[in-house]
């Protein structure tokens, strides 16, 4: 298929979707109920690089559900807000969503600070909060006292464990760490330290740095002085770009294990294949081989012009809407928000036929079968805390490409 034909095909598919979406729309015009979802995403602030993609994913997920005739007889309606990646702004935005827009779920909060500040409000309103934050505190009471908090991202601890698994598997003996001075950065490297020491290893050096520096040369020197064979980071794209550039300039040989939100195609674009060769990028991209991921990836590419791999959180927010909609479908037309909340595990966890899209799930549910939604972001099985345990994809950067070598599963 040539490029041109491919595009024509996609456009045709989009047009079909549009028509399919419009027909039920006519029905809804005659008094169909709606289910209101608040999309509270980090469009600006530290989460800025991901927020708008997350929001787009929520929007097209809702379109997809509506195009399939809605969920539980209801049409999804999205109200989008910017959390500004700041708790105060997020609290006001959440109040607005809950009080003014009367949303029945809040999805897509990102930083732990924001989620911890918002969850008391969603608990108070008895609506679910679906988030991609790493802080362990979100699993348990008081934050998750009502079991209405759902985590679509691995906890920082699980990330750290995965890093340790990988370091061991790759035969590294002398690790050191570098962390961005925030909850997520330190969470990753401390999680790594715990897991590594549990394996009987020792971390040679741990450096925590403040962001927004013009240079990280002395931080690097400190870490490199301990002559590590691998440096594990909890870092973001901008600081990682500068750090790796300065490391390459230094000429000292070392390997890197970096979280996927920093070691991504943008990093390769910024530094080129030579500098990034051999970097190990770890991400909770769990379900790359699943149909749901391909399905999502297509839509994401269409909506944003970017590959799905450029934004792991977008897949999570997409799954939030789809799983919520499946729970609505399972709970039936008259269900309360609590009843829908209670159905989430039923539609997402095992013992049920695997489904990969909302439409498939809806069809199976209509036949009275049990389903297990396999998400785009992970297999999406919630534990007793409402946390998923995504698998971790281990990518090696080779000649400017992110190649996945293997997958690590953390229980």
């Amino acid at each position, binding site marked *: 298929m040539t490029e041109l034909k491919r595009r024509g095909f996609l456009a045709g598919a989009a047009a079909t979707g549009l028509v399919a979406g419009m027909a039920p729309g006519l029905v809804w015009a005659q008094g169909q109920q709606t289910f209101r979802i608040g999309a509270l995403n980090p469009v600006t602030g530290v989460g800025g690089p991901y927020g708008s993609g997350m929001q787009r994913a929520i929007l097209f997920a809702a379109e997809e559900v509506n195009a399939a005739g809605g969920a539980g007889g209801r049409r999804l309606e999205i109200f989008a807000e910017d959390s500004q990646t700041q708790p105060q702004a997020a609290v006001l935005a959440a*109040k607005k969503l809950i009080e003014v827009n009367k949303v029945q779920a809040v999805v897509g909060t990102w930083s732990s600070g924001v989620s911890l500040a918002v969850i008391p409000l969603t608990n108070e309103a008895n609506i679910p909060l679906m988030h991609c934050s790493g802080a362990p505190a979100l699993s348990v009471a008081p934050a998750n006292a009502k079991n209405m908090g759902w985590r679509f991202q691995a906890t920082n601890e699980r990330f750290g464990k995965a890093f340790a698994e990988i370091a061991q598997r790759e035969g590294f003996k002398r690790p050191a760490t570098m962390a961005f001075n925030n909850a997520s950065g330190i969470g990753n490297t401390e999680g790594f330290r715990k897991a590594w020491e549990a394996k009987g290893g020792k971390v040679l050096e741990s450096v925590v740095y403040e962001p927004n520096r013009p240079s990280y040369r002395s931080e690097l020197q400190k870490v490199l002085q301990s002559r590590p064979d691998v440096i594990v980071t909890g870092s973001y794209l901008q600081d990682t770009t500068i750090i790796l550039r300065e490391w390459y300039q230094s000429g000292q040989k070392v390997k890197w294990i970096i979280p996927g939100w920093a070691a991504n195609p943008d990093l390769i674009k910024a530094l080129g294949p030579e500098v990034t060769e051999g970097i190990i990028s770890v991400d909770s991209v769990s379900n790359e081989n699943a149909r749901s991921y391909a399905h999502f990836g297509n839509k994401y590419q269409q909506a944003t012009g970017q590959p799905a791999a450029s934004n792991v959180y977008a897949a999570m927010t997409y799954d939030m809407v789809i799983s919520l909609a499946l729970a609505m479908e399972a709970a039936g037309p008259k269900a309360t928000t609590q009843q829908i909340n209670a159905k989430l595990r039923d539609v997402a966890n095992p013992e049920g036929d695997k489904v990969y899209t909302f439409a498939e799930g809806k069809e199976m549910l209509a036949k009275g079968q049990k389903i297990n939604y396999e998400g785009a972001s992970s297999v999406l099985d919630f534990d007793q805390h409402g946390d998923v345990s995504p698998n971790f994809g281990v990518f090696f950067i080779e000649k400017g490409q992110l190649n996945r070598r293997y997958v690590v599963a953390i229980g």
Partner: protein
Amino acid sequence: MESYLLAIAAVALIYVLLTLGLNLQYGFTGLINFGHVGFFALGAYASALLSLEGVPLVLCFLAAALVPALASWPIGLISLRLRDDYLAIVTLGFSETVRLALTSEKWLTNGVQGVPAIPRLFAELGIGRIADYAVVAALLLANVVAVLIMLRVVRSPFGRMIEAIRDDEEAVLALGKDPARFKVQVLMIGAALAGVAGAFYAHYITYIVPEQFVPLVTFYVWMAMIMGGVGRISGAIVGAALLMLFLEGSRFLRDFVPGITEVEMASVRIGVVGLALILFTIYRPQGLMGDFTRR
């Protein structure tokens, strides 16, 4: 809707309290404080940490006033020996230092993880509208008290001295008075007000983390003061209200103006803040509530 309006009212009143403090410092005394958020943060952390140790909230709030006031004391002493406009940079540096210390001193502040589950005010009323009303009422009361304190300060001989300092420092010096001492005291009162505002903030949001206390907060307060009217008590109220109207109003704007993405809206929001600062400085330096004849 009601609860959302109450939330806006609470945050607006916190900003009013901050603006009153800044107005006392700059509006009445001419002290250029660009580190207001540092005092706000100290108050928030002091009260939050003490309350989690089981200290009664009344004492926590007292500490929230005392800690920033004491912290501002050496700053005042040091920087008043320097040029006026250096105070802006010294205070800005101070607030960043506070943020870094809150981030780094894990043993005390829990560092980047922040302080969760801070007790709410009036927790015995449960969570809901009644408690929200009580919080807003308490904030109103705090603001009234702050205004009374300010009026006392402004109208006292001390206060007339303050205005004299603003208008002509050399004349005061010639009278044999020491303006530096008054300035330090005013700096401390303003810092205490910011600290109390911080305590309200901590117990309202119930979760604080150092990254909430960035210099942007200081600039918002400056914007409120300038829009409302420098040196006017009513200006602080009107300015903070305008600020909230603008920050929150832009959310609703987006519900009605399609075609502008949230990312672009965020840019527009910051741009409008900037434009407001420029236009007010040029065309209405006295602010909305200011003296129309003076410039």
